Every structure is written in structure tokens, then in C-alpha cells.
């Protein structure tokens, strides 16, 4: 079954060129970081599960740019980009991938469990749907404490089938909590296409059934993602949860173990023509907001950051085995 890609994002980008450059750079930071991770996985430097976000960068980039520093983020096991753009330093993310103690979870979490208290990045959850109830709780805390603080909860289309989604949407709506539910619909839950596991594949219909304001945006267009997330943030901070379906696509296999035999190659190719980075780049160039040198310069800065991150991770240390039982409990 094929999932038609939207028309390629086009037209002038309605942002000042410097903002656009930051968006472009952040998409590139996610892309280059993950390309490097894939390479390092092949080299055996990174192990366990590794879920790449390549193709979906516009979503995390647009969304994170719409958030404030003080907002909370709850994500999934496909969260490298979310952690990075919430502000977790790339070197600490890479060190975590290596399992080094300089990692943002001290090497204990790995790819699926990035955490960072300082930037209010709450992970990094390998249980599908597991983050939604948490987000409801963060929203409750912010509301009861009178804080102007959004909690953004990222999850995949597959998570919508879990009971946790149903219970969490109802609670958030019932209690009128400042939570933005950001559903990254890449049309597949591992190897199962959405219409093969959802009787109603229009996810906004589901979200709306809780009385939650729900809308879909083009997840390949960083502009649409930014605007959708900003609108959701306004709705949520005004006192009611919002649901945004980001329609996007995963270019790589589900994980490094996935032979990816369940998708139609033509479908993948079609979506690749909507690539969030090259379409955005083309638009900026067309409106004269970006030159090829500037692009190469940005990309070079990103490559350098990635290299520094790898060097940092390589230079990192292993947590001593004596510390294994540390932090199971509060001291």
C-alpha cells in the first residue's frame, strides 16, 4: 500500500534569512550526526538498537524552534535529533552512543535513552507509548505550580494504537493541561503500515474524539512544522492540550537490524524527492536567502561539530564497574 507524498514544499520561506539559516543548520546537524552514527555502528563503536531519524528532520527542527528553553520534552527511542535540538551537546550525545561515562546518561542509556536534566530533556523511552502518561504528569505539575511551561510529547504513529494514548489524551483534555502531543506519522510501525493496524488511519480524527484540538501538517516542510508546533504551543499554554500530526517519512530502515522488505521502493524514492533539507535549501536559494558557499560553509561547521563529538566520545572513559550499582536508589 502506498502513502502518497505531499507536493514538494515550495515558495519563499517566510522567515528572516538568519532564522532560516539556523533551521537549515539544525536539520543538517541531525542529519550529519546520524549519518556518522550509522557509520560508527558499522564500525562497531555503537551497539544495541539504533533508530535513525533521517528524512524526518524537519519535524524535530521545526518543533524545537517553536519551544522555549524552559519547556519539557518527552520523546521516544528515535530521539537523537530531539535531544540535540533541545540543547544536549552533540559531544555528550555521541559519548552516550559510545557508552562512555561522559555521555548524557553516563553511558548507561545508549541511543534509546538520552536524558538531560539541564535542558529538560526527559528521554529517551523504549516503550512505545510510554512517554505519553509522563507528559500528562509534567503538564499537571506545570499547571498546579502555575508555571508557564509547555510539555511537548513526541511519539510515532504506532503509539496511537496503544491504550496509553487513549488514556493520556483523555486525562490531558479532562484536566486541561499544557501538553502538546506531537505525533510523528511516518506511516509505519516497524514493518506494519498504518492502514494495516489502524481501522481509522486519520489520526486527527482520533485525537479530536477527546475534544482535543488536532491538525496535520506537512512533516517534510520545516516551515509548516515550525508553524504547526508554534500554534500547538499557543493552544496548550492557553489551557488545553493540542495534537499535531506531522506527516513525514523515514528514509532508513526501522533499526539497524531491519532488512526493510515491507516497503515499496518507489514509495521511498517518491518521499526522498521531498527531502526536508534539499527542498528547504532550494527554496532559500530561489529567494536569494542562501548561496551555495553559505550552504557549504554551514555544512562544514556541522561536519566539524560532528568530528569534535566523535573525538570527544573516543577520548571518553568507561564508567568504572564499581559504580554499577550507583543511583539505583537515592543516596
Amino acid at each position: 500500500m502506498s502513502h502518497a507524498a505531499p507536493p514538494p514544499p515550495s515558495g519563499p520561506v517566510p522567515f528572516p534569512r538568519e532564522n532560516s539559516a539556523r533551521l537549515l543548520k539544525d536539520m543538517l546537524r541531525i542529519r550529519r550526526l546520524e549519518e556518522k552514527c550509522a557509520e560508527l555502528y558499522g564500525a562497531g563503536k555503537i551497539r544495541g538498537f539504533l533508530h535513525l531519524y533521517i528524512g524526518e528532520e524537519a519535524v524535530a527542527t521545526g518543533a524545537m524552534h517553536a519551544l522555549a528553553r524552559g519547556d519539557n520534552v518527552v520523546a521516544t527511542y528515535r530521539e537523537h535529533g530531539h535531544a540535540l535540538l533541545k540543547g544536549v551537546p552533540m559531544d555528550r550525545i555521541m559519548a552516550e552512543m559510545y557508552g562512555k561515562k561522559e555521555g548524557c546518561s553516563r553511558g548507561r542509556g545508549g541511543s534509546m535513552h538520552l536524558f538531560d536534566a539541564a535542558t529538560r530533556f526527559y528521554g529517551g523511552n523504549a516503550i512505545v507509548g510510554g512517554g505519553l502518561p509522563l507528559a500528562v504528569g509534567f503538564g499537571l505539575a506545570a499547571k498546579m505550580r502555575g508555571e508557564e511551561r509547555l510539555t511537548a510529547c513526541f511519539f510515532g504513529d504506532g503509539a496511537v494504537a496503544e491504550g496509553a494514548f487513549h488514556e493520556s489524551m483523555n486525562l490531558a483534555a479532562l484536566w486541561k493541561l499544557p501538553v502538546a502531543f506531537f505525533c510523528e506519522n511516518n506511516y509505519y510501525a516497524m514493518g506494519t503500515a498504518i492502514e494495516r493496524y489502524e481501522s481509522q488511519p486519520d489520526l486527527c480524527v482520533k485525537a479530536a474524539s477527546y475534544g482535543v484540538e488536532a491538525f496535520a501538517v506537512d512533516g517534510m516542510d520545516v516551515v509548516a512544522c515550525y508553524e504547526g508546533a508554534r500554534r500547538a504551543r499557543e493552544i496548550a499554554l492557553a489551557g488545553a492540550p493540542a495534537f499535531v500530526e506531522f506527516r513525514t517519512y523515514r528514509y532508513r530502515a526501522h533499526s539497524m537490524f531491519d532488512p526493510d522488505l515491507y516497503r515499496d521502493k518507489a514509495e521511498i524514492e517518491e518521499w526522498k524527492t521531498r527531502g526536508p533539507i534539499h527542498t528547504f535549501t532550494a527554496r532559500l536559494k530561489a529567494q536569494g536567502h542562501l548561496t551555495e558557499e553559505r550552504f557549504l560553509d554551514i555544512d562544514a561547521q556541522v561536519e566539524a561539530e560532528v568530528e569534535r563529538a566523535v573525538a570527544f566520545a573516543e577520548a571518553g572513559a568507561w564508567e568504572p564497574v564499581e559504580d554499577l550499582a550507583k543511583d539505583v536508589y537515592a543516596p
Partner: protein
Amino acid sequence: MTITYREALRMGLREALARDPRVLLVGEDVGRYGGTYAVSKGLLEEFGPDRVRDAPLSELAFVGAGIGAALGGLKPIVEVMTVNFSLLPLDQIVNTAALLRHMSGGQFAVPLVIRMSTGAGRQLAAQHSQSFEGWYAHVPGLKIVAPATIDDAHGMLGAALADGNPVLVFEYPALFEMAGDLSTAAIDLARAAVRRQGTRLTIIAYGGCVPKALAAAEKLAGEGINAEVVDLRVLRPLDMDTVLASVRKTRRAVVVDEGWRSGSLSAEVMARIMEQAFYDLDAPVARVCREEVPIPYAKHLEEAALPQVDKIVAAAKGLFQ
């Protein structure tokens, strides 16, 4: 002051809510209804619907929300009506609450308290009569407590809120009508307690079985066997020092557990005694547990399926044959 176990639980809740504005009670029918067992009766009127918050039948989400709220700066007390229903939010309790601190490299504390009633004895049949304290006691990252006295029913909640770890407080409807004096003793979440001094054997119990253990000890005393009774109080981490000190003194022990025999907490206590006091034993440690059957509705069958005073007495005497 003489109060019931139920009143002691309520007093603990009221004090917690009054002491700290970050504390809130969340659960099904904790507010308007007053709590299934009337434990939270009156608290809605006193503290309002935000802090005494009725929740939908959504155990997975409201327990998970309790974790998020704790991370977000509140001190939630989440009530899961009974342990039988706690299988629904178990994923959140184990995969998030218990693991988070360690897997995040020690960045996050989860100061969450989860209360639930547990145990059998009221003819509520198979799905409402289970005891899973032993399961929870298996999970690193969780602290598990089982108040069996008026003081613990009153004080363990406050200690749990102050602990900084996810703490599960098990409440025993079988003890709700039990009355006693409330003391001013400080309540810890670390030590087991010797509830009766004895010399010839140690009866180790927790929760709803503690009064049965004490009654058995009285009977045994009548037959010239002076038994010591240890109330575990804290099921994780186990205070083996207290247990071992008693067993090394008496050289014999019976473990009483309301859970199904195989794989119940009693097995762990026996394993630890074997590991640490094998050469001090004059007889193998015995146990009295729930029979390995779902609890039937019929009274005579339910009674036959549960640990009873006479079974404890018989097991104790068996140690001397």
C-alpha cells in the same frame, strides 16, 4: 490515642497534604466517593478537587502521570484501588519509575508514592484477592513497604514521601478495623521490627499476616514454645540483619506469606537465611503461604486457601519433630 488502622492511614494522608502544598492524592474515587475503603474520606472537602483528584479508570495513564508529576516538581500520592488492578499500570511502575534514575545516569529522582490495598479474606474471589507484594519486591529502584501496625499505617506514608525514591505502600483491608494506640515513635523505611520477643523459633511475617503470626505465637506459648515474631515492614530492601539476628538466636524459623507459595517473598527470605545462616539452623526453615489456587468466593474455601493461625502453629511445631 486509640484509633483504627483505617483512621491511621487517613491521618497520614491528611498530615501529608497539610504539610506540603506539593503533595496531591490522585486515584479512582479518592475524592467525591471518599475512597473505596473510606480511607480518603473528608479529604476532598478539606483540600479541594485539585489536590484530591478523582481520576478516570485509566490506571496506566494516571500512574504514569504521577511519575511525570513527580519529575515536574510535585509530590504525588497515587492510589491504585487494589493490587489486582496494578497489573494495568505495571509497565509504568517498572519500566519508568523503577528504571529511570539508574538509566539516566542518576539525573532524575522519582519521589512518587503509590498506595494500594492488597490481600484476601473478604470473599471477593479470584480477581480481587491477590497479593503481589512479592513481585514488586523483586524490582530494583522500588521501595516496598507493608504497614502492619497503627504506627506504620500512620507514619509510613510520610516517610515514603520523604524518601526520594518511588515507594509502594501496601494497605491491608483485613486490618482496617484493627484498633490500637498511636505512638509518637519516628517511622523509618529501613528496619524490620521484632513484634514479640521469643527464644525457640522465629515467625517471620508481613502485612496482614502479622496479627496471625502473633496469635500463633500466643498459642505456641500456651504449649510451652516461646516464639519470636519479626514483622518485615519493609519488603524491599529487606532488613536481613534483624531477621538473621533473631534466627541465629532461635535457630528455627517459619515464614508466613499471603502470596502464592511458589515464588513468593517467603522464598527469598528462606534463600537469604540459607545463604547467611545455614550453619545456625537446627531445622530447615518452614513456610506457611497461600495455597497455589485462585481465591474462591466460598468462605470455607477461601479460609482453606489462606495462611491461618493453626497452620502457622502446626508448621512451628513441625520444626521440633
